[in-house]
């Protein structure tokens, strides 16, 4: 199954991809759209991705985790328009022991946020929009609207 999806993410589907009779520990992480960011009320948001590179990088990160720990990883990121409460990203990691499942799960989400080319554009309750940019002062840069 691919890394990017424009359909709602179902954690149960990821669990089924990683579970096996010899894997007794399953750690998951779900990133959900929040109703506020930097003190502003979020109405909804849109994720765009550099598709081929995001797929390649998502697969690389899963592979790194699976070679560093004896685990199986499933990871998915949603694109397109998301509402508050929608799952944006999901990671499921199964292994024989819980320490490695937790560590690998944490690794995948940290690397994903750092390396996978996906961008979030927030729309606020007042109708204005901004690009989320962790390197910018205030964490966002207003959308100027020359292109989508």
């Amino acid at each position, binding site marked *: 199954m691919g890394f990017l999806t424009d359909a709602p993410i179902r954690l149960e589907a990821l669990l089924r991809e990683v579970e096996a009779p010899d894997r007794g520990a399953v750690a998951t992480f779900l990133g959900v759209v929040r109703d506020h960011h930097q003190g502003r009320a979020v109405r909804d948001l849109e994720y*765009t991705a550099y598709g081929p590179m995001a797929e390649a990088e998502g697969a690389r990160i899963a592979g790194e985790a699976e070679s560093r720990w004896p685990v199986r990883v499933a990871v998915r990121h949603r694109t397109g328009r998301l509402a508050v409460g929608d799952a944006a990203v999901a990671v499921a990691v199964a292994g024989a022991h819980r320490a490695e499942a937790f560590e690998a799960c944490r690794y995948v989400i940290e690397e994903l*946020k750092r390396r996978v080319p996906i961008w979030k554009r927030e729309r606020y309750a007042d109708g204005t929009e901004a690009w989320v940019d*962790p390197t*910018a002062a205030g964490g966002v840069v207003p959308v100027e609207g020359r292109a989508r």
Partner: protein
Amino acid sequence: MTQAAIPVQVHLFARYAELLGHERVDLQLAPGTTVGGVVSRLRAMPGGDRLPARLLVARNLEQVGDEATVSAGDEIALLPPMSGG
């Protein structure tokens, strides 16, 4: 140019697409042009002066430094700071 120019696609995303008004730019480059050279060409385009001083660039789906060279058919992408997850 004394040698044949090489065709390269440059993809722009999110805020960078907004600044330059394009999601894709097709360039004809001199052989031996580096990633830094590609970035200079983009900075010279309308809106390109507002690109940040430090840019993440991918060549064929992998991040590379300014010194990396560009070959015919390469896919270059300018990556704004990532904000997935």
